[in-house]
């Protein structure tokens, strides 16, 4: 399958952003991690989300309870737009990846940039991505959104929060990537074609 150039990629991605705001609302992802946590949490401890006598939904957790318990409501009604959106995101990515015969075997556990720098230690990579996942979602919740909701959707709407978030993200991400994946200290030097 042909590798798209930046312009075609930009038009495809931009069309999806536009379609989202035309038909429903801007794209967002990270809140659904909380919703899935709440669904799991409520299965383990049914006291987490409860219905009062007059049918009001409430949670013992104040985060789920905020803004009229909107997260608690989503968690007991997972067939809502935002949650299905993220499920569909996974399905769409799966279909696209199958059309290009999936991820190469050598990339399954760790990407090439990682292997070039740290060697092929899958366990180390998996530990690092677990911690990164923790950090990324904690940061996203603190910020009230992630790269999708704050950066893409926010910048296209000229939201001030998007500029704050984008500055914070890149100020941290660029030096981090440069230091962590610094070529001069490669464990394994590979010739680049």
């Amino acid at each position, binding site marked *: 399958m042909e590798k*798209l150039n930046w312009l075609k*990629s*930009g038009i*495809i*991605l*931009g*069309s*999806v952003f*536009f*379609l989202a*705001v035309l038909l429903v*609302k*801007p*794209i967002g*992802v*990270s809140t659904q991690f909380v919703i899935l946590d*709440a669904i799991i949490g409520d299965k383990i401890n049914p006291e987490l989300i409860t219905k009062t006598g007059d049918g009001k939904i409430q949670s013992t957790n104040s*985060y789920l309870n905020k803004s009229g318990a909107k997260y608690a409501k989503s968690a007991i009604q997972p067939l*809502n*737009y935002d949650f299905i959106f*993220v499920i*569909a*995101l*996974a*399905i*769409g*990515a799966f279909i*696209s990846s199958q059309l290009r015969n999936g991820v190469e075997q050598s*990339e*399954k556990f*760790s*990407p090439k940039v990682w292997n070039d720098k740290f060697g092929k230690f899958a366990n180390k990579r*998996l530990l690092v*991505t677990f911690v*990164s*996942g*923790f*950090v*990324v*979602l*904690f940061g*996203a*919740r*603190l*910020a009230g959104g992630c790269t999708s909701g704050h950066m*893409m959707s926010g910048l*296209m*709407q*000229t*939201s001030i*929060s998007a500029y*704050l*978030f984008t500055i*914070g*993200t*890149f100020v*941290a*991400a*660029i030096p981090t*990537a440069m230091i962590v994946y610094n070529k001069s200290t490669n464990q394994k030097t590979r010739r680049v074609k």
Partner: protein
Amino acid sequence: MNIFLAFLIGGLFGFALDRVRASNPNYIITMLKLENLYLMKAILFAIGFASTLMFAGQMLGLVAVGHMSVKASYFGVVLGGVILGVGWAISGYCPGTGIAAAASGRVDAMIFILGGLLGAFVYMLVFDQLMDSTVMNSLFGGKVTLGTIPGSKYEGIFTIRGDILGIVLGFVFMFVAYKLPEKILKRR
């Protein structure tokens, strides 16, 4: 109907993330190292393209202004961005692309999601303490946009027309995307 649209738009978004290689951590990390800016150009163009279409559509009455959803500005937005940025640079995944990458068969992305679920859970637990701290202090008046968008419930920090400004900025984003070199720093 809403559920159908969720499948349609979510599905297209996931398909697009995989197709444009945004869910490939090699492209994210080489972008952040400023070695290969292909993805940066694509994303900047996408933002500009969508912004221009949305605001032009609003001016023509084809896009509902009420569909906009502007997030609040507070100190935690910057701090959260910094925290997210560190994890993003190390893993090469953010929440959306992590899910797309996991669905494409990347095992490290599946583990990233598990870590993410734990991170979001811990946030739920410390939310009360954070609410009382200064990180929630509002900046620039909360849910605000750059210009003042006609018919929008959000205030603009400038009185200039927000929709026209949005179109102008949309073109700026597309122009920067076009001008930005694909490779800035050479690979050693």
